[in-house]
């Protein structure tokens, strides 16, 4: 399992993290890879902190536990930084992606993040409010994830998004989400 990428998502219920964790997995499946995506189920109250997990691998995935040593950590709500140790267990060369107005350098200082870990920030909420008219930062953060990590292709992500959202939402909403992916991929800042 050398080629397995493990992503841990931190969010509040209602921000679409579970959908995002599946969207990224399904995008990888589209490219012929093996996947796993699961939320950690607890009391499902809007606004409660939650975690979700995505595994992507070139070989069948046989482990079925929560992700303790993530390669990538995605945080959809910056207020969680004061409550949750989002960096817990992250690999020394891992990547942290946060929905935040702060610059990545500021986040690095605030959380005292070692130099080996890549830090990326994007105003995913701002992009969502502007384009979807609601603060659901999941599709923008997926765009940022694709841009920063390279393991997921933007075009494949949008193709999968079309497939997943096409069954549930109007063309207007789908278009707005597709724009969110592009805009966040363009806006994300890395340090």
């Amino acid at each position, binding site marked *: 399992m050398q080629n397995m990428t493990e992503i841990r998502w931190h969010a509040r219920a209602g921000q679409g993290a579970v959908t995002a964790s599946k969207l990224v*997995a399904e995008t990888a499946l589209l490219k012929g890879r093996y996947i796993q995506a699961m939320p950690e189920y607890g009391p499902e109250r809007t606004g409660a902190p939650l975690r979700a997990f995505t595994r992507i691998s070139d070989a069948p995935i046989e482990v*079925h*536990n929560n992700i303790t040593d993530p390669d990538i950590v995605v945080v959809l709500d910056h207020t969680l930084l004061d409550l949750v140790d989002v960096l817990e267990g992250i690999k020394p060369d891992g990547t942290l992606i946060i929905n935040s107005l702060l610059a990545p350098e500021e986040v690095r200082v605030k959380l005292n993040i070692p130099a080996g870990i890549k830090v990326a920030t994007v105003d995913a909420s701002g992009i969502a409010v502007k384009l979807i008219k609601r603060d659901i930062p999941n599709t923008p953060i997926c765009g940022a994830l694709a841009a920063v990590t390279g393991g997921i292709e933007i075009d494949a992500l949008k193709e999968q998004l079309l497939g997943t959202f096409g069954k549930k939402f109007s063309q207007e909403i789908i278009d707005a989400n597709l724009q969110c992916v592009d805009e966040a991929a363009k806006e994300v800042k890395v340090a």
Partner: protein
Amino acid sequence: MAEQKVLAANGNTMVAEAYRQAEPDVVAAYPITPQTAIVEQFDKYVAEGLVHTEFVPVESEHSSMSACIGASTTGARVATATASQGLALMYEELHIAAGMRCPIVMANANRAISAPINIHGDHSDVMGARDAGWIIFFAETAQEAYDNTLVSFRVAEDKDVQLPVMTTMDGFITSHAMERCELMDDATVADFLGTRTAREPMVGGDHPVSQGMFASVGGAYFNLKQGESLAIDSVKPTIQRIGEEWAKICGRPFSLVDAFECEDADYIIVILGSSAGNARAVARELREQGVKAGVLRLKLYRPFPAAEVREGLKNAKAIAIMDRSDSFGAQYAPLGEDVRCALYPMDGHIPTRDYIYGLGGADVTLDLMRQVYSELQELAAGKLDQGKHYLGTNKAQ
């Protein structure tokens, strides 16, 4: 050649798809977490006209199993799904379904039993039903939940079996986690499953019969129960034959037990369900370090594949039996007792240590698996006792 579609799906979806393809005549079910999505999705297929199933939305699991028994005695193909307290509420009817030799397929999304309330995955519910006379499968993955479900219809309805089958997967871990799965085309599944031919239906046909009658005098009950016992004891070759037939079609291997590197293993973990992969991942890691580790996963739990377990464990120096349930007041948890009984007729003694793990969905980390293998090495060296231990709790043993 059979065509399979690759899709991202969780265990509940894969079971609902298997039910759609099996198209039971009757499904009577009541939703309960974590299997609700099976019932919900299947009901949608009924509403959309994708299947011509009589869906009976009952008011409890006691009623769902009662309705399933009634339907099965008429010769219908019958399926349902449940979990946890729902399975517990069926307790009476589970025995009646087996005693009346009713082929019924029931998915169970394994979940803890109250109290306290817990919706997460463990095997406490299934183990409460292990003596009811049902054939019981444990799936490791969503894919296997699908394969086992299809095989179960054929097994249950086979003229030499005629018994209910519980096809289980771990709640949330398997029922709700999305994985890469393969779905067989409908025509191939329809061809594999065929239709049910009832041996002696209660209604219809030229010779209607009565079933489940009063049998309190003259030893009839005693003799019939022996028949039931012989029936379940003799189904293994049929399961093997049908499983292999499906394996040939779908290209995924089938065996009653999955023995990973057991042939020359010194240290073997025996386990059921979704955590087997974690044990295998650590066993691979240890093999790279020169430690001969193996994993014996039971896919079939009832009837207990004792000969296969013995065969898999015969060369071990130390064995860990891992139970995701407890049997309070008993010497060991259910799998612990089963495996120890299976080993008893063997010459020589292999030291065995029992671990109760992951109750109420407690996460089974790779570190815990490493701990078990490390303790097995101490056990083989005579430095540890052979008792029952809780793994990963904060209480000292």
